[in-house]
């Protein structure tokens, strides 16, 4: 048997496939379509201190190979999550990671602290990369200094394994990653969505009520993969790759580029059981290649000789 387990900084996962925040609801939405126990981990929808209304519709639009969303982090708030969702979710044998955001550093800190007080949460993912809210979110993720400061404060507030989710809109994503590492993060996840837009030419109006939204899905995979490769070289804490992963091959590309684990987002909408198929595909690949485990694969990209010399 191949060993699919992996470690993302203080958190051991039974396999490297994690359902991405915002694309998997509170997890429970999917339990009719797949076995949650199969997942390496599951990241719930971004939570804030208080319930969040989200943005006006229309909130999504399909683009070629991808989709734009401007959900705006609608959520029931950290307390309702702990009361209503967590007890049900805890019954599954899966790492539960909570994605958090705030409009201020203080709000992030409070949510992280609140989550640390309860049983059954295996990790926190700090979202400093949502392009769909006006205050907070991506503001912290674009600037290395702010990202570092926020990470540090949340680090002080919680002993839970801390993953920090970066935005591809950062001016220099490797620099942000390094600052986040230095500030005490246990792992780094990337990428969140790219800022995009679409227009209805019949009405000359934007197709999203908020004009712009976040682009996700297979369309962004080549850029996401390149960024993961770069960041994996820039930091020494584990990197969790995401952006357009929709098959075992996609996941393997990220792992070979240096990711210890991957997040599957938009692909859950295309096929609610895709994560399980990806896990099985990775297992089969390791078996075919006669590899003992994921670790042998992480960062195993073979650089052509002519490129090695010129870099």
């Amino acid at each position, binding site marked *: 048997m191949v060993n699919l387990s992996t470690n993302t900084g203080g958190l051991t996962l039974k396999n490297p496939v994690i359902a991405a925040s*915002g*694309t*998997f*609801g509170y997890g429970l*939405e*999917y339990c*009719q*379509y797949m076995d949650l126990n199969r997942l390496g981990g599951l990241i719930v*929808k971004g939570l804030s201190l208080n*319930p969040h*209304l*989200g943005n*006006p*519709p*229309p*909130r*999504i*639009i*399909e683009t*070629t*190979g*991808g*989709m734009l*969303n401007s*959900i705006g982090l*609608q959520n029931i708030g950290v307390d309702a999550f702990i009361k209503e969702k967590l007890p049900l979710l805890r019954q599954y044998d899966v790492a539960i990671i909570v994605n958090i955001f705030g409009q201020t550093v203080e709000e992030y800190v409070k949510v992280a602290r609140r989550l640390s007080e309860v049983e059954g949460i295996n990790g926190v993912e700090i979202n400093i990369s949502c392009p769909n809210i006006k205050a907070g979110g991506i503001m912290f993720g674009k600037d290395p200094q702010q990202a570092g400061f926020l990470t540090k404060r949340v680090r002080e507030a919680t002993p839970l394994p801390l993953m920090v989710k970066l935005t591809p809109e950062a001016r220099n994503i490797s620099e942000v990653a390094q600052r986040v590492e230095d500030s005490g993060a246990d792992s780094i996840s990337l990428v969140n969505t790219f800022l995009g837009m679409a227009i209805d030419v019949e009405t000359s109006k934007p197709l999203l009520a908020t004009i712009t939204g976040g682009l996700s*899905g*297979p369309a962004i995979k080549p850029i996401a993969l390149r960024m993961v490769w770069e960041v994996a070289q820039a930091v020494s804490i584990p990197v969790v790759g995401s952006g357009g992963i*929709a098959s075992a091959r996609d996941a393997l590309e990220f792992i070979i580029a240096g990711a210890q684990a991957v997040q599957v987002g*938009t692909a*859950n*909408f*295309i*096929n*609610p*059981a895709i994560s399980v198929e990806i896990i099985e595909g990775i297992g089969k690949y390791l078996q075919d290649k006669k590899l003992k485990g994921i670790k042998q694969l992480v960062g195993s990209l073979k650089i052509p000789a002519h490129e090695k010399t010129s870099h």
Partner: protein
Amino acid sequence: MRNIHVKVVSNQETAPLCFRMVLSGPFENFYLQPGQFIMLRIGNGYDPLLRRPFAAYKVKTLKGISLEIFYAVVGHGTRIMSRIRPDAELELLGPLGNGFRIPDRTTGALIVAGGMGIVPLRALIYKLLDTQIHSIHLFMGSKSASHLLFHKEFQDNEILLHVSTEDGSNGHHGLITELFSHFLENHPLKKDNNVCFTCGPSSMLQTVASIASRYRLPCQVSLESRMACGIGACLGCAVKLRNHSCSSSSPENYGRVCIDGPVFDAREVEW
């Protein structure tokens, strides 16, 4: 609620840019209520990327139970769909959402359908007839005579048909809401036991809802929205609802068309 593999039996144009697709698959224990829907994955690649929502209807054929959908070609996804050939394999998620509810003691139904909105209402009509509710007024509007779906089928039935077309090629020349409003004005109803059911373009639904409320007629609207997941996870299909709960400070909140609907009580919707 499952993800199943189905096969295209046929896919033919029945009205201008309106197709009927018949699917075969493991539909034995597939129970669809009128108003519920399915999400269909169109093709095997990533274009279109997301599944598309459609009302579906179970039909018995010689070969067993099939699923029938009627769809209009309105954009990129349905255009590609219209080119799918028999024997193609697709993936189908469903049944999804909450359908129409027929309250106990309902004796009559006023049904208002705009364009493709007739599709889920057709299933409702048969259910009403099955439930021995025979006072059914169907108000059916479309662009033109050739776009009136199931028109013949309904004429042969015991339901009372009111037709309008935007170009006047059949029935009233104008909007179906005009006909509906005019009818209510001239035919006082025993309101308590009548229910209004409606599906169609958003502007039509809004008008129907306000007419129904004027006559204190309970009204169920089937809403549409762009969907990504269809199962309540993405929050993409949000519709503004009036907030009845006291727990929240805001006077409104967002419901999910896919799982809180697609059928809503018209009074819940913040138009």
